């Protein structure tokens, strides 16, 4: 800088400044995006404050109402995402910083992950309606809460895990600079966790479209709730045998998911690359997004963005949370071994009390034979899940390997598989059910594929990812050793993609359990088809308003999922990642 004549620097400044002022064509596009988005949020938000009276919850099958309904559905999704983020930041950092909080939060989150999401709705909807009597808002809250429970847990885990793995030097450095808790959170913890958190948040949202659609039209006993949205639109179409309307809804949702994928998912994931610490890792293909490129290219957008960015960063640099030191006796008592024992006693007492009240609540009303019945039905659903995942694996693993080994195909197919996983498959259920009713097929068999309709794609895209990362020199070595046929599958590629496959299969299984509540019982007009299983048990209990049985079914399902994870997936995953990691 100093070697340039001052006049020249001034000139250079002027030139670059004048260039910066000229908006380019990208600015217009971005501007439209931003203003349009703000307007939509305002419109959608006002509608939720309307009273819960007939005209406001009347659902119409006119295709022209669909954009408005889609907007409501999207807003519910975002509200839930904001909640999930807050929950993640609070509980994730609490668990990472306090050992005692960790002891409660981590197992809690682990269990919550296994509880079927739709079962929450049965419990919460009456409570939320009582909280906001006579307003749509109460029902909205119940729906948002259900979506929140489908999103938050893996985000909390991801954040907690990232915080625990922050390199020690970065922590030491922040301490030695005396950044303070608030600044340190924004300078170190949040950015460090960003890539994992953003990826998990986007995966959560993909999965949550299913639940946001499902939670819009639900009846718990006498209370029938129908929120304006794509889900309730489809529910009404089912009642009225209207295949055209279902077609319109599917089309709308396709557009919504495509927009979500292109406008949110991809730009965010590409942007989060910036926060990756191990950017040099060779097996990592950086994500890209046309929209992100566009925004970064747009001059005006950057000019508008800068003040916002400055505001955010000055918020983040507010110096609060200076190490507050508690009085010495309090600190001594806190770190005293005796207080540890008190803590354990409190935890144990709480757990016993919870267990006791659950036993009284269930055992006092429904009786033990019912418990065994639920457990048996859980076994039936488990069988269904296992068979379906096996069938899906037999189909998608070879396809995924074939695609994954061809980089061009992989680049094209990966987003498609992600897209399909995000699409709420319950919108397609009526089409299948209509078929079952028409041809009088056995529901116990033919309803089953619905469970895996949406979740099989997790297997596909994980296998594609695994295969495309498979080391090329191992493939060449196998070629030159003339390893072919079954031996090639067994010795070369299957072990190579195993960890990726297991990741996909775990997600698919979890999703299928959740979907069983919707998939095992379905209706077409007035005809109802039902398969035997824990899902239909919970669904029936919900529509009867029998909360005892809902609780029982939910508990049994959560136990099945937890046990299956602990006894099957975890050992397999540990074995796979230890033995089969190419290094």
């Amino acid at each position, binding site marked *: *800088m100093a070697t340039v004549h001052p006049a020249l620097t001034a000139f250079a400044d002027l030139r670059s400044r004048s260039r910066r002022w000229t908006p380019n064509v990208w600015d217009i596009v971005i501007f439209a995006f931003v203003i349009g988005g703000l307007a939509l949020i305002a419109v959608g938000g006002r509608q939720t404050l309307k009273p819960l009276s007939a005209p406001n919850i009347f659902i119409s099958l006119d295709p022209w109402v669909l954009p408005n309904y889609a907007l409501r559905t999207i807003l519910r999704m975002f509200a839930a995402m904001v909640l999930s983020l807050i929950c993640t930041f609070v509980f994730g950092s609490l668990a990472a910083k306090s050992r005692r909080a960790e002891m409660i939060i981590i197992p809690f989150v682990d269990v919550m992950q296994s509880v079927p999401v739709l079962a929450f709705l049965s419990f919460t909807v009456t409570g939320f309606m009582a909280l906001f009597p006579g307003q749509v808002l109460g029902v909205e809250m119940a729906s948002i809460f259900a979506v929140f429970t489908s999103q938050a847990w893996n985000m909390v885990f991801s954040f907690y895990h990232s915080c625990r793995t922050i*390199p020690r*030097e*970065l922590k*030491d*450095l922040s*301490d*030695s*600079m*005396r*950044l*303070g808790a608030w*600044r340190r959170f924004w*300078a*170190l913890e949040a*950015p460090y966790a*960003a890539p994992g958190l953003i990826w998990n948040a986007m995966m959560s949202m993909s999965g949550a479209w299913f639940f946001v659609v499902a939670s819009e039209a639900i009846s718990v006993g006498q209370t029938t709730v129908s929120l304006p949205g794509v889900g309730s639109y489809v529910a009404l179409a089912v009642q009225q045998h209207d295949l055209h309307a279902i077609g319109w809804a599917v089309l709308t949702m396709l557009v919504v998911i495509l927009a979500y994928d292109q406008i949110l998912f991809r730009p965010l994931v590409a942007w989060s690359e*910036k*926060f*990756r*610490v191990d*950017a*040099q890792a060779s097996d990592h293909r950086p994500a890209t997004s046309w929209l992100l490129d566009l925004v970064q290219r747009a001059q005006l957008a950057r000019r508008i963005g800068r003040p916002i960015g400055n505001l955010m960063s000055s918020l983040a*640099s507010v*110096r609060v949370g200076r190490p507050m030191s508690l009085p010495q006796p309090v600190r001594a008592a806190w770190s005293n071994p005796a207080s540890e024992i008190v803590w354990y006693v409190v935890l144990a007492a709480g757990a016993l009390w919870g267990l006791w009240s659950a036993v009284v609540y269930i055992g006092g009303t429904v009786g033990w034979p019912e418990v065994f019945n639920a457990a048996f039905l859980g076994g039936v659903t488990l069988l269904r899940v296992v068979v379906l995942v096996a069938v899906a694996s037999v189909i998608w693993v070879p396809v995924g390997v074939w695609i994954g080994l061809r980089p061009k195909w992989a680049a094209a197919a990966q987003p498609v598989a992600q897209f399909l996983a995000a699409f709420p498959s319950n919108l397609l259920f009526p089409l299948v059910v209509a078929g079952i009713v028409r041809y009088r097929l056995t529901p116990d068999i033919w309803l089953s594929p619905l469970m895996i309709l949406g979740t099989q794609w997790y297997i596909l895209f994980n296998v594609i990812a695994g295969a495309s990362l498979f080391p090329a020199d191992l493939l060449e070595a196998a070629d030159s050793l003339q390893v072919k046929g079954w031996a090639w599958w067994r010795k070369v590629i299957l072990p190579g993609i195993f960890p990726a496959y297991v990741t996909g299969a775990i997600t698919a299984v979890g999703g299928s359990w959740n979907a069983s509540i919707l998939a095992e019982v379905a209706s077409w007009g007035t005809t109802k088809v039902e398969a035997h299983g824990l899902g239909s048990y919970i669904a029936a209990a919900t529509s009867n308003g029998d909360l005892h049985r809902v609780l029982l079914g939910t508990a049994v399902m959560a136990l099945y999922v937890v046990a299956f994870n602990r006894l099957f997936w975890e050992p397999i995953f540990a074995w796979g990642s*230890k*033995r089969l990691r190419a290094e």
Partner: protein
Amino acid sequence: MTDLAPSRAAAPAAEVLLEIKNVRQTYPRGRSDHLLVMEGVDLTLKAGEIVGLLGRSGAGKSSLLRIIAGLSRPASGEVNWRGAPLRGPTESIAMVFQSFALFPWLTVQQNVELGLEALGLSPEERRSRSLQAIDLIGLDGFENAYPKELSGGMRQRVGFARGIVMQPELLLMDEPFSALDVLTAETLRTDLIELWMEGKLPLRSVLMVSHNIEEAVLMCDRVVIFAANPGRVAAEIRIDLKHPRHRDDPAFRALVDEVYIRMTRPDAAREAQQAAAQAAHGGIGIILPDVSPNSLAGLMETLTGDFADKADLPELADELSMEIDELFPLTETLQLLGFAEVAHGDIRLTPTGRKFVDSDVDQRKRLFGEQLLARVPIAALICRVLEERPSHRAPYRRFSEELEDFMSEDLAEETLGAVITWGRYAELFAWDEQGQAFSLEDPA
């Protein structure tokens, strides 16, 4: 630029900045027990000097550095900073890390400015101070670059800029050059010393942890040699050579030799302690470094080939381009196994070592096994337990728990790792990684 270096020239030369007295550090082991990391450490740092802290890995140098930085507190002893007890991180002590520790999501300038926020400076002031530091350390033009766009050497320059922008009185450096390649490290060292000698660095004193003896002799006014188990100051050597120093200067070589001799001098305290351990527990408390038998064989072959069975350690380190934290574990293991003797800065192959070099593969394994059984008590213990048990199998925990009576969990893991590698090579026993168990016969 001048106001960056305010007080070094004006300060009285012998002002004491840091005074450490009888510091002892322990880490918790299990529920009630503590493991001793360092004991009786005394150290004084004065204004205007660069002090090197030399020692092998695990000697507790980094623990000491963390104590001085205010990041951890000693179990007992005094740490006085300018006459007052040190109570935590302070802006007058800054730190440079081996791994650079740059925030990858911040630009060079943002990284440098980060610490200034805590000083409560205005944005303009932060900017001008960080630009000055960036300029001084030779990073002009990279202000807006992200760390991943920079080479290792440039990244460490950012690390230095971030340290000196705080205008600290003491700069702590934890092996700042050991993650860099040889040429880059040398450039950085000479640049730094030049700035220091010209009085351009806004620092009054530097404390540097190093693994590299030549580096310490090249840069420091004083070298403090740290001994391990528990960490303590073993010796202090003044380096009065004028800058710029040259590695081939005979006086320089003599000092390097002297440091080597001090570092390989049989350490009376350690010998006594090991003898006590040997007497009380059959010697299984010896900590073993996980070095590969191939490296040991390679070192012995180098000794017979290029050096007629006896070598000067600095020359050997130079020949193999190894730093002491790589070389010393190898030479110590050779000594432990009776293949070589190390003393007074020299290493000499024993007749057994000579025999090893002259043998074929199977004979080497047999010889290695014999030495292992005779001289490494934990290896002998494993073989004995396996023979006594009818199943001829024993779990990892059986031995790791016994080792943890004498050392930390990490060291026990490393020690057992070494025994597993050596025992497998010598075919003394088999190891099942999956089942975490030793056995006499290979199951496959």
